[in-house]
């Protein structure tokens, strides 16, 4: 049996150097531990057998929620869903992102699960990812070569794979300041009412003025190897009053963007159909929140 090491560094620098060192070592892989709601399940199933576990929850920057003076939000990668829920302001500004993060698992899972873990686990069905994509979130990562930022949709590389390079740790998500008349929403299709993995997930973020959509972003999950930014759907919405024709065009764009698989959770035909249905429903809620102004 291989020896497992557990480390809980207090600074990002220590975490990055330990992570880089452990990944370089022969003793097997190293894993970042945030909430552990994916990692522990995978360890138990024997899918991953890390030699070193680096718990990042003692690092301030990755567990903080900050509303910047310009109105943007910085969410630490390891903030739990329950903590984000309890924040007095975040849910008012980004209700769609919050509902997406809060849909992850049960109340128990919420006590631990983080948006950073959701993104880095790189499941095509991660709930927070399409909502973050729609929100236009940018992530900050830190590695042996320093810090960089990239759009959230550039992180997933395929099921279980990210574009992070060896030694890199996801530090935070930055969600931009919101113009007036903005609203976002996230809906997913699951067979049960709770405790399920999304068969399709859809995030929509809109800005409206004078009854017309002035800006839009659409994220789709569980319909392709990675969560998608559906630019054609956004284009169909921008400039419209969210009339049936525009919604149908956006729904068609979502269906066209789908490249799903048949698996235990859904068929190709079903997922493709549902992507369009959810786009319409999610856009309606986002518009409601934007005040349809």
């Amino acid at each position, binding site marked *: 049996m291989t020896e497992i090491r557990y480390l809980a560094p207090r600074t990002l620098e220590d975490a990055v150097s330990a992570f880089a060192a452990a990944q370089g070592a022969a003793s097997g892989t190293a894993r970042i531990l945030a909430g552990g709601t994916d990692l522990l399940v995978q360890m138990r199933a024997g899918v991953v057998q890390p030699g070193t576990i680096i718990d990042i929850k003692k690092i301030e920057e990755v567990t903080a929620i900050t509303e910047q003076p310009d109105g943007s939000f910085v969410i630490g990668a390891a903030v739990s869903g329950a903590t984000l829920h309890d924040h007095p302001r975040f849910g008012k500004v980004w209700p769609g992102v919050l509902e997406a993060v809060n849909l992850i698992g049960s109340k128990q899972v919420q006590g631990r699960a983080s948006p950073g873990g959701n993104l880095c686990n790189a499941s095509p069905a991660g709930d927070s990812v399409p909502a973050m994509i729609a929100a236009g979130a940018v992530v900050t990562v830190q590695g042996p070569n320093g810090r960089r930022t990239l759009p959230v949709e550039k992180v997933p590389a395929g099921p279980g794979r990210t574009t992070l390079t060896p030694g890199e740790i996801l530090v935070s998500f930055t969600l931009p300041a919101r113009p007036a008349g903005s609203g976002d929403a996230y809906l997913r299709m699951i067979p*049960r009412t*709770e405790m*399920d993995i999304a068969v399709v997930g859809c995030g929509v973020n809109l800005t409206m003025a004078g009854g017309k959509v002035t800006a839009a972003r659409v994220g789709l999950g569980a319909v392709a190897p990675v969560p998608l930014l559906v630019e054609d759907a956004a284009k169909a919405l921008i400039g419209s009053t969210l009339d049936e024709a525009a919604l149908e065009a956006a729904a068609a764009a979502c269906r066209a963007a789908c490249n799903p698989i048949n698996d*235990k959770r859904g068929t190709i*035909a079903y997922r493709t159909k*549902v992507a369009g249905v959810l786009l319409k429903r999610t856009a309606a809620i986002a518009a409601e929140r934007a005040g349809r102004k």
Partner: protein
Amino acid sequence: MNVITPTENKWIGARTVRPDGADKVTGRAAYAADTTMPGMIWGKVLRSPHAHAIIKSIDTSKAEALPGVKAVVTAKDIVDFPVDKSVMLGIQDMRWMCRNVMAREKALFHGHPIAAVAATTEATAAEACKLIEVEYEVLPHVIEIEDAIKPDAPILHDFLKHEGKPSNIAGTMVAKLGDIEQGFAEADVVIERTFRTRPVHQGYIEPQACTVSYAPDGRATIWSSSQGQFMVRAMTSLLTGVPQSNIRAIPAEIGGGFGAKTIIYLEPVALLLSKKSGRPVKMVMSRDEVMRATGPTSGSFSTVKIGAKKDGTIVAAQGTFYLQAGCLPGSPLRGPVGCSFAPYAIPHVLSVGYDVVSNRSKVAAYRAPGAPLGAYATECVLDELAEKLGIDPLELRHRNSAKTGMKAAYGATFNQVTFEETIEAIQNHEHYKSPLEKNPRPGIKRGRGVASGFWYNAGGESSAQVNLTEDGNVVVTTGHPDVGGSRASIANVTAELLGVEHDRVSVIIGDTASIGFSNLTGGSRVTFASAMVVTQSVEKVIGQLKERAAKIWKIDPEAVIYENGACRPAGPNAGQFPPLALKDLAAKANETGGPIGAGVQLNTQGADPGFATHVVDVEVDVDLGIVRVLRYTAAQDVGRALHPSYVEGQIQGGVVQGIGWALSEEYLYDRQGRLDNANFLDYRMPVCSDVPMIEAVVLEIPNPRHPQGVKGVGEAPIVPPLAAIANAVYDALGRRFYSLPMSPPKVTEVMDMKLAAE
């Protein structure tokens, strides 16, 4: 036997606090996995990675050499029961059980035990399993019934023959009444449909677990959770060769079973590991192992054909039921073959069942084994029939209800049929009478459905001992594990009959060394049977109390009566002496002849069948194909509710299991024949937010052949829901579904086909 009527009762029918309650809400109650022993080590099972393979060799030497490993067992260590001679224990055939606990000639499903290891830690045991070298010759596998009965299907067992040829059809069962051809000839309307269901798991939250200590004197003690400690003893004895007298099986608290824990997987293996290692061995299954390798209930492929006259009189019914047995014979054919048409007075019946093996884990009992499958087909066809005839579906059932004294196709003659009462209870219920808004919002459709169900119920062997303590309290010991409140019912009965306060009665489940043989907790028999033996034991205790009082008063025992917890002089001596309470007599027990207590062991008889009728409202999100249950009402005749809360609880729990079966639960296999959803995230049992309150309409029509009038409760509630929900979905969507579960992709597919057709 005198039947106690409701009015005169203080405890029977009262919602008392259960005797084992405080332990269970404080975490004290010891379930199977909670036991530890000094020197205990851990056992783990190596399981087949293939769905179907010949085991050419097993080399355990590397595993045995791993530090910390104390013992390894394989099929060689389990008693072999040759395939050509059946050895039965209850309904279980040891030929199959010995091959189920450990693969012998072949691995028959992905997850089939191949070997087991005991080591000082769980991790070491798991590591050692990986070091066991097994040479397999992988064979083609078959999973679904339709594939398994094809002429060119891979054959699991050459020795199984159907119509003279090797076949995956392992057996058949027939129930017959009248002349089926003639029956259909008389019919004005005939409807025939084919239905499919998937295997579903019982889904108990407590995985199988046991701790076994085999001492150097050859005596073994087993702590495990099961639906019968005597079954654990007997089956372990048969599979290990240790005589029953040397095995003491102690029933741990059981964390749900629903039929599944009427057979064993781990106990014989743990015993052999303990014997070889000289250490107590604990084995606990993971959820993955539970889903993969313990028995779900059968999936099915059934055709039901029913013929009726224009006036709604059903004249003929035919059912053909193919059931999945899993990898070894033994699917619950008796359920669909016997129960499907039993509630109805049909002159011509032919019901045939086929037991089909395939490369899945061997099925185990699940609540009313097999009956829901048959009722699903039958009650859906009845719904179509009612529609076609223009008769209200409940009215159609009512008109055709079986009657007391009639003979059912499965052979029995009914002593008491209370089916009509359950139908009337629903007909008269506010739920059924209230209108349902069918199109509440765009994209949302609602529908209402009804269905009925039947279960045999059972009596059988039961033992009880009732002892008075020196301080005048009562200890009752029974031999049946308490799966959901049976101790509470027994405490109520005992307190009532002895006229003492409920909190003066303790109820204990004895182990195999401390109480007489008691058959399984299952088939809705425990409350019926144990209340009967406890009643008889209490009657004996009361006889003793009267004798003691008579002795003290120096009068004839015949001249003593027992009422309200005390002996009183009666007849000519009435009023002559102050009453002697149970407490006083207990205190004087030694002076008057010794300890007071009595036991009864009996093969109980007189169980009457259970009938249930349900109504359900569903709501469908048409674009997403999601079906949700809005309202559910279930009426059932229970004979007598000794503890109403636990009776309601049985009904509510059974209904929600039925909802899962109808809408979301199913076993999914991949191309290699591996179970693809062996966890609670992907095997979708209803969660709290999926279901509404379940209204249980408890009808109490006493069973005249039981001292308190009890009938079984636990099985019947799971029989109607599959069809009731399917009928409600039809009412909502105008489309019939002939396969379960009615999952969102399936619902949208059928709806899209409908749109295309329109």
